[in-house]
């Protein structure tokens, strides 16, 4: 019992330390939870190659990542969006010049049941469906039947992309089913004839049918050439042009090896 007690104590202490304070290591990375898996994989591989470099990594969202760069509390700020004008202005008043590095791409594809005849939806139609204004497939040229809207949990990065790019700040209807994972969406859409959902590019299976968006099919190629609309770049920001360890870490992510890790983390590599 005593040993268990001790173990419990140590575990909780570790958790406490890891979650509350980021010790000033040699390289501090903060920001978007979408970029986190990429940064995590890259940091592990980088630290294995360079044992003298200590990287501490935490989430907190894109806004926090960029704020950390401006305040100087992190060397690298992750963001799943580009910097906003307001943030640029704030940086300028503090004499900071944030430099963006696009490290990966992220694309989300709308999917329906294979029995569904709809093959193409516009961004507006997708938005109207998720707002609950379009309720029946016949309104978008399909066979009549209720549309079952399936979404991801509001905390997920995939939902974040969908909200930013498709919903443009408006709210997904409360009656939308929410599923905790990409795999769950595939499962639910495959079993429900009237369903529509969305998944990351890496999760497509033959059990579900992809829908073109504004006539463009969601493929890695169309994401890379910029024609697929539900895609975005994932960024790492640095305070001024990076030097030393920061520079070599960014170069590592942009190298062939780093981009392979991007793919492993479920995003689209740049090349």
């Amino acid at each position, binding site marked *: *019992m005593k040993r268990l*007690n001790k173990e419990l104590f140590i575990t909780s202490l570790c958790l406490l330390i890891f*979650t*509350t304070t980021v010790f000033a290591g040699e390289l501090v990375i903060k920001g978007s*939870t979408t970029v986190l898996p990429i940064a995590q994989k890259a940091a592990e591989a980088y630290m294995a190659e360079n044992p003298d470099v200590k990287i501490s990594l935490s*989430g*907190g*969202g894109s806004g*926090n990542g960029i704020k950390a760069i401006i305040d100087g509390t992190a060397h690298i700020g992750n963001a799943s969006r580009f910097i906003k004008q307001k943030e640029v202005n704030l940086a300028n008043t503090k004499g900071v010049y944030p430099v963006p590095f696009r490290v990966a791409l992220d694309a989300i594809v709308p999917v329906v049941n294979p029995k569904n005849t709809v093959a193409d939806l516009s961004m507006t139609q997708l938005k109207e469906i998720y707002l609950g204004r379009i309720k029946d497939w016949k309104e978008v040229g399909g066979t009549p*039947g*209720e549309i*079952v809207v399936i979404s991801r*949990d*509001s*905390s*997920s990065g995939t*939902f*974040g992309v969908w909200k930013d790019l498709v919903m443009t700040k408006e*709210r997904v209807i*409360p*009656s*939308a*089913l*929410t*599923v*905790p994972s990409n795999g769950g969406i595939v*499962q*639910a859409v495959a*079993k*429900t004839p*009237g*369903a529509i959902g969305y998944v990351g590019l890496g999760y497509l299976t033959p059990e579900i049918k992809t829908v073109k968006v504004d006539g463009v099919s969601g493929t890695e190629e169309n994401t890379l050439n910029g024609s697929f609309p539900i895609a975005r770049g994932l960024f790492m920001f640095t305070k001024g042009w990076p030097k030393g360890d920061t520079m070599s870490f960014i170069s590592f992510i942009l190298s062939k090896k780093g981009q392979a890790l991007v793919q492993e983390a479920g995003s689209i590599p740049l090349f």
Partner: protein
Amino acid sequence: MKRQHIDKTVQSGFLLVALFSITVLLLIMVFLFIEGLPILDHISVKEFIFGKYWYPTDDPADFGIFALILGSVCVTLLSGLMAIPLGIMTAVYLAEIASPRVAEIVKPIVELMASMPSVVIGFFGMAVVAPFIQELFDIPVGLNMFNASLMLAFMAIPTICSISEDAVFSVPTALKEASFALGATHFETIVKVVIPASLSGICTAVILGLSRAIGETMVVLMAAGGAAMIPGSIFDPVRPLPASIAAEMAEAPFRSEHYHALFAIGIVLFVFTFIFNLIADYISHKFRQVGEASL
């Protein structure tokens, strides 16, 4: 060592173990409140409990859990409607009617049902029951309140059944014999003597079964559909309280409003199960069958 010393050592040893587990539980409770209460800096209790919209990651965010509470309550009640009659009737059958040989086989099977992992039941609901009820009732989606309630009923039946069975079984034979002696049939004896005599045990069984259903996470996460809406029919998807915590906690930024709101949901859930257990405790003390004279 003297015998008295051994006795003392063993006694204090057990005391320590008991204190340890109670302290840990107490600390968890304290932690729950420390992490949950700060949400009240952002919204009032009324807005939190009765707010209709749960959009925790929007800017500005909405932290109304009324739809989630309603989801939990509806799922629990509906599963109760299915599980209580089945559980109690099975218990009465096993204790009163079934031949000892049948009871010997059926009882372990019911108890085996209780050991079914909830994730298996949830997966069964999602992969097998959902498409089935979708076809059967011709509804657009099978992941809904009805599906989740059905699965929860499966989980509550063994609890309700085995505790009520003990209660029914422990009704003194003299009571039943007296009833038979007055000319009552077996059925009349069960309805008018045996069940009233074991009522406190049956109530405890029901409440423990329901509190298992309200706190169950995996099943509702997988089978209830997860829509944070106020349900209009039993075939609407719902998002019970535990499902929200399980789905969102991993991604909620540490010590953010969302994080505190999820802990506050934990407090609400704790209050629910706490009240359930208080009622169970009260009933089992108040209506306890003491000997044959008290009926």
